[in-house]
């Protein structure tokens, strides 16, 4: 019984003894379960089913960080010991513990039951991914503009991998995206076992078995040589793009001859250059699934908007924009949390009758307010860049106040522009950049959008 559970948990994973104990023996005294499971693992190791490796050698074998000395003596081994602070949040690793591994699970073939059909461009994208898998490429870029229908383009690939009885992992830097993606995948593949992994799940949920896994990129640290195909969605998003440990985790989680698919609407310059030079096979889907052009942002002069804001006033151009879209919903992006409240007050003062609220990452009512906006109970939502991606609201108009702020990078601005005109019913949204001096990032963003529109025509 326990043996079966331990093996199921270890499939394709690398786990510490502590993780196994807390996941498999919830209520029992730690020491007893520890001894029992250690003994079991030793037997399995002797049989060659499980392998183990010292968790810290020169560096942490899970995240690659240099270990920190443990003050005093270790309560586990009784000697001088070290531990890793890099992946502490995934459960502590000390030099006297091991990482246990077992070979990845087999999956059952499962058909995709999604009822919709792919557009020609989507089909091209999807075919390119399946070809990359069949040709055993190691990397593939799927550059699909915001609203191209990326998730649906992944379905044929997932189906192909499952048909080979192999598991698939879809990883993404953001937890919100995992929570949104998991139910969609589950609905498309009802016969497959789909599991979502992100921080804050209960210990036994962390070792759930799966055919299709949807996880945050942090969770990849728990997997080892597990997937013939690893799909990284929103690959350019923070923190994955800036964290060497996560990039390392991704390369460890995928099978040694496996395929890593980078999916994004805004590839980094490095990725773009690699693709251009032919080092990275790439497929571009430059058109939305409904076929309309991406909305091209328009620049509007905002002057010294911060000065005006102090007097509870907004730039004339912005007021005109808001009046024009009085009957539609508007997402208004500002550079900093400190700008949220003054902007909200000014909107409320200048446009009485407009329901306006604000969100930022630390807002306790963030989820509720976004929900209210979705339900059309709010007309203008003032936000920081947290809503730059992953939000789809029908017929929303977007505005950015103060694009000269460094936080509005080319990527961020393209993503923001991509919020508008996503639905086939309202394919043309209005995107306005209010500025006190255009930045090259903003100019590049507009140029990129125009180029994608032109090239996919």
């Amino acid at each position, binding site marked *: 019984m326990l043996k079966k559970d331990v093996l199921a948990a270890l499939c394709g994973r690398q786990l510490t003894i502590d993780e196994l104990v807390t996941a498999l023996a919830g209520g029992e005294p730690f020491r007893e379960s520890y001894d029992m499971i250690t003994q079991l693992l030793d037997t399995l190791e002797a049989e060659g089913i499980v392998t183990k490796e010292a968790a810290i050698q020169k560096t942490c074998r899970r995240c690659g960080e240099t270990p920190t000395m443990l003050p*005093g003596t270790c309560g586990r081994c009784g000697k001088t010991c070290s*531990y890793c602070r890099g992946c502490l949040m995934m459960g502590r690793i000390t030099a006297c513990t091991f990482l246990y591994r077992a070979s990845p699970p087999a999956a059952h073939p499962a058909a995709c039951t999604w009822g919709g059909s792919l557009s020609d461009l989507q089909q091209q994208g999807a075919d390119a991914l399946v070809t990359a898998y069949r040709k055993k490429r190691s990397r593939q870029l799927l550059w699909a503009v915001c609203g191209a229908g990326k998730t649906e383009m992944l379905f044929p690939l997932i189906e192909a991998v499952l048909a080979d009885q192999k598991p698939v992992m879809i990883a993404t830097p953001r937890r919100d995206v995992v929570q949104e993606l998991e139910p969609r995948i589950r609905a498309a593949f009802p016969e497959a076992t789909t599991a979502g992994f992100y921080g804050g799940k209960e210990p036994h949920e962390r070792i759930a078995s799966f055919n299709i896994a949807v996880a945050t990129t942090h969770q990849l640290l728990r997997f080892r040589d597990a997937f013939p195909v690893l799909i990284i969605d929103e690959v350019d998003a923070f923190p994955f793009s800036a964290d060497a440990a996560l990039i390392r985790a991704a390369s460890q989680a995928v099978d040694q001859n496996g395929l890593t698919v980078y999916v994004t609407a805004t590839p980094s310059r490095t990725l773009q250059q690699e693709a251009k030079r032919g080092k990275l096979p790439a497929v571009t889907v430059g058109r939305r699934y409904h076929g309309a052009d991406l909305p091209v942002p328009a620049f509007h002069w905002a002057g010294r908007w911060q000065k005006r804001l102090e007097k509870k006033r907004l730039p004339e151009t912005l007021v005109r924009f808001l009046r024009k879209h009085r009957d539609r919903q508007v997402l208004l992006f500002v550079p900093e949390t400190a700008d949220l409240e003054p902007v909200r007050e000014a909107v409320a003062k200048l446009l009485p009758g407009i329901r306006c609220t604000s969100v930022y990452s630390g807002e306790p009512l963030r989820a509720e307010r976004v929900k209210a906006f979705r339900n059309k109970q709010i007309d203008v939502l003032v936000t920081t860049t947290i809503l730059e991606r992953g939000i789809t609201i029908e017929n929303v108009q977007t505005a950015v106040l103060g694009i000269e702020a460094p936080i509005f990078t080319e990527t961020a601005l393209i993503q923001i522009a991509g919020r508008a005109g996503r639905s086939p019913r309202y394919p043309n949204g209005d995107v306005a950049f209010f500025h006190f001096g255009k930045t090259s990032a903003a100019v590049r963003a507009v140029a990129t959008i125009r180029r994608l529109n032109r090239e996919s025509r």
Partner: protein
Amino acid sequence: MKLIVTGTCLLCSETIYPAGDWYSLLQTKLPSLCSACTAKLAPISQTSCCTICGHPDSKPRCAACQPEDFMQRSLYPYNDDVKDVLARYKYRGDAALAALFQLPMQRLLRRLPKADAVVPVPLHADRLFERGFNQAELVVRRPKLLLARRTLSAKQSKSTPVEREANLREAFHVTGNVTGMRITLVDDIYTTGATMRACKDVLMQAGAVSVCGITVARSLRKSPM
């Protein structure tokens, strides 16, 4: 060559640059916390706290305290920020954070009557094995391990006050000679003080002259007095 020596914040991993004044230039070590994290860990003012239980802003003594009660001092109020730091230290096992508390704890020690031995509240062997270290032992410089824990009592943080007293009465025993010694106990969190009082009882029975305590954080009363 690097002209400016930078450090990394122990809590948020933010890069720390030395302040641009002569004093910081002459320091050999940079602070281990960035300014934002330092601001989060605001210590209890030791000049205005209760002289018995160390509750902040209760000088000279809070209404509930008697002069003969257990005397202790705490470094920080147990607010949400401190709770996060201690949870990471204790439950996540980030033992390096002990370095944050050592120097201030040493200063706190000097505010209490002189001690012949600084004794950490012990963990049960099984708990020590599970956690990997005794959180009370690492926050002071020269701890003397003169106490041991007999049975694995239920986790104190999940018990009611009545259960705590019952659990603890039998839990501790003295492992060394404490006759005639003045002892200061060390623990991480002071809630009702039951743990420390239980330790004091066994130490006094074993011949200690006086026992007081220092803790990293203490919980606050619900309403201000």
